[in-house]
């Protein structure tokens, strides 16, 4: 099993983006619950924030295979 230590590192590195994505969607859900008519605006912002947070995890897996 080579490369397993890389994957352990990647698993640890994915904790941060996981927590971040959870917080982003929690805020999005409570925002829509309070003001359902703002859904269209909030959805774009939520997806943008999700994509930015997820980019960290994605860079992590790219580096886990590359290094």
């Amino acid at each position: 099993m080579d490369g397993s230590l890389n994957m352990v590192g990647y698993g640890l590195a994915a904790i941060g983006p996981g927590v971040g994505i959870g917080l982003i969607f929690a805020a999005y859900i409570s925002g829509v619950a309070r003001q359902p008519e703002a859904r269209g605006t909030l959805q774009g912002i939520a997806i943008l924030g999700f994509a930015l947070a997820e980019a960290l995890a994605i860079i992590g897996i790219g580096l886990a295979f590359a290094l």
Partner: protein
Amino acid sequence: MSTQLLAAGPGFEAPGPGDFEFPPLFGEGTFFTKPMLIVVIGTIVIAAFFYAAARNPRLVPGKLQFAGESAYGLVRNSIVIDSIGTKYGKKFVPYIVTLFFFILALNISGIIPVLQFPASSKIAIPAFLAIISWIIYNWVGISRQGFVGYFKAMMFPPGVPWPIYFLLAPLELFSTFIIRPFTLALRLAMNMFAGHLVLLLCILGGEYMLTEGTGALPFLSPIGFLGGIILTFFEGFIQILQAYVFALLSALYIAGAMEAEH
């Protein structure tokens, strides 16, 4: 160790980046590989679908025309018009719709039998699409605000105390010109890469446990296959979501380059 006993016997070869390399389809030395075949097939299928849907338009749409119109209208309304706005957004509807359905076709080929490879997990395809988006949003910014105005609005957003600009201006420049296209391409490619790898791991692991495993391993192999089936549906969802994210981010970058202050 317990991991040795359960998952990785001496004979099991875990799937890795090597599974994403394909030999040429027609003989040695040619360049036409399976991902390129998927790109060609996906382009033909998408083009044929929209051509057939729009070929004979009627006031009361038939089934095919309705499917084409709702697919087009979904992307047009929920991605382009919502983020750029009706007035300036119309110009970018063709590009964003094409982008979305091209990426969707390449992604969804990962869970279609026989094809079974997401062509967008090869970094070249998302990188090329990201470069096109990069050129478009920079061109929009420069043509609408002027060269100096675009850089000024990008690097010096108003409403910040001036010492912050020493930190903010290089960061914004770096973010707009390097980070954005880089993450745009890498996000799509690595999502497809990781998803395909997980599917391979489940299916190949289940097969290995069934055929070569000893002791209790053959009885555990249904877990691997079950995981493969569940993750296939999850992958389908992720593939649609990633096409949506790529198109939405391209639209948001265009919208951001359009306004003087964001």
